[in-house]
């Protein structure tokens, strides 16, 4: 490294740098932020390759709005539902904040799913990125858990029935489902434990995994685009492909994030989520959030174990994918088996979701 490459060297060699630039140099000298300026291939800056960043942006929106919601939410069963009602009717701006939180959760689920599909289509999970694929699958599972626990926290009939499924599935799993049982800590309301999971355990785990995900992306570098030439190993983009600093990638992700945030704000004003009546035990009269409809259809056909079969099969397939698919090709056109399997799974999930609109829900809880 030459003197010119160091922050101090850069400052000396360019005396007419702006104040902002010099301030950045001062910070960089102490915090090393220019380490983020590592090169990434040009193709990484389009929207489809930025979906992971957009998902992370939605996560940040969720953290900020979640902190605000936590100031007014009471996780006690007697007061939880009413605290939400008070919050959105008596505290200025909180109806909007709750609306943004709700829609950001939906956005994070959708963008994470789209990111996962993009990685699948472009074969970006292949060697040497299998480990990072597993980290991503784990994060997708955590996002679903966060959606689930968030649904329960409303403590309305829909949330309580979701919790009922959770408890009975825990029973089905025997010892493996003990944590989900109210018997695990019988003197503590299960709502309080799920609140802890929603605001600490799940986001904390996501933060750890996001960090690991990003570090592994840096270590393995952005995967090559399947329509472009690769380097000699086949695992990296061609050295002839133009690159941009990673900070430019972050800049574009932030721009997409602003579009997302604006959209969330509009939805939060026009379509804020309602708050259902507080729960009453012994009823099963609501439908779950749309994200779970495909499993709900399976439950209607197979009973409660249908949820385990469906969810377990999907995540088992996702987990095994990079180890079973050893085809070195990345272009979808040259991976007929993986593409056929992926299409079958996608069509099944979409069809089961749509079927929910046509079937009459059956009662399963307590049966």
């Amino acid at each position, binding site marked *: 490294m030459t003197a010119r490459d160091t922050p101090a060297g850069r400052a000396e060699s360019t005396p007419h740098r702006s104040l902002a630039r010099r301030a950045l140099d001062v910070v960089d000298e102490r915090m090393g932020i220019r380490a983020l300026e590592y090169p990434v291939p040009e*193709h990484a*800056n*389009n929207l489809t390759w930025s979906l992971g960043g957009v998902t992370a942006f939605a996560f940040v929106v969720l953290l900020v709005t979640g902190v605000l919601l936590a100031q007014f939410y009471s996780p006690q069963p*007697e007061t939880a*539902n009413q605290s939400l009602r008070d919050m*959105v009717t008596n505290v200025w*701006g909180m109806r*909007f904040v709750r*609306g943004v939180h709700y829609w950001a959760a939906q956005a994070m689920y959708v963008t994470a799913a789209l990111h996962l599909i993009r990685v699948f289509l472009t074969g970006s999970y292949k060697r040497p990125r299998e480990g990072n694929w597993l980290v991503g699958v784990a994060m997708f599972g955590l996002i679903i858990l966060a959606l689930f626990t968030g649904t329960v926290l409303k403590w309305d009939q829909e949330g309580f029935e979701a*919790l009922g499924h959770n408890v*009975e599935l825990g*029973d*089905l*799993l*025997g010892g493996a489902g003990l944590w989900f049982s*109210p018997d695990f800590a019988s*003197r*503590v*309301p*299960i709502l309080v434990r799920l609140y802890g999971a929603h605001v600490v355990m799940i986001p904390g785990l996501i933060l750890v995994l996001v960090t690991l995900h990003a570090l592994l992306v840096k270590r393995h570098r952005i995967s090559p*685009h399947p329509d*472009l*030439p*690769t*380097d*000699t*190993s*086949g695992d990296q983009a*061609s050295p002839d*492909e*133009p690159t*941009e600093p990673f900070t430019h990638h972050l*800049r*574009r992700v932030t*721009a*997409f994030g*602003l*579009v*997302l945030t*604006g959209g969330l*704000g509009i939805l939060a*004003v026009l*379509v*804020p989520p309602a*708050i259902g*009546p*507080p729960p*009453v*035990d*012994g009823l099963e*009269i609501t439908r779950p959030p749309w994200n779970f409809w495909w499993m709900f259809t399976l439950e209607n056909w197979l009973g409660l*174990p249908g949820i*385990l*079969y469906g969810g*377990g099969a999907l995540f*088992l397939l996702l987990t095994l994918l990079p180890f*079973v698919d050893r085809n070195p090709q990345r*272009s979808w056109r040259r991976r007929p088996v993986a593409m056929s399997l992926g299409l079958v799974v996608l069509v099944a999930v979409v069809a089961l979701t749509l079927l929910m609109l046509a079937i009459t829900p059956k009662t399963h809880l*307590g*049966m």
Partner: protein
Amino acid sequence: MIRGTWRLVVVTILALAPVTLTAGAQAHGDDETQEGYVLVQQALAHLAHDVSSDGIDLAMEKVNDALETEDQEGVDVAEVEQGMHALEADQVDQARTLLQDSITEALAGRPLATGYETGTGVVPVELPGRGPLTGSDWLVMVLSVGVAGLGVWLSVRFRPHESVSALRLLLGTKPVTANRPKRRIRIARHPR
């Protein structure tokens, strides 16, 4: 050979997973409650979710169960009967008030909820997402449109210099795998 064995193991696990996962499954039996105040709450819940004739019919079934059950501790049966008459007369709001009042005593003495208990006392109707847009709503919406617009402008301004098709032209028209060594060579480079 080893790879084939692994695949066999994986397929076997996939096939057996549903069986092993649900090995501990048990029938729970019908848990329909006999507690009068819970039955009244269930009637209130039906009325809170659906005030069509279907919802009222379901609520009346629950009220009927509450009147017939032996466990009516803390329930004002006379008010429940009045609630039933109100439902029969399609006076849902009055029925709701009477039914809620009828279980005041039962709810008053309950300890704090633990485990899987609901802790529910009053059963109000759904709080709608929003009413008519207020001045604050319009302000926030205009700001949101502005933020989205700024994002669109920045994403266009910061767009990549080259699209993927332009990169393909720039990098030549060689097939995607032209630079890739043959599979045989790669195996030699990574001996097991």
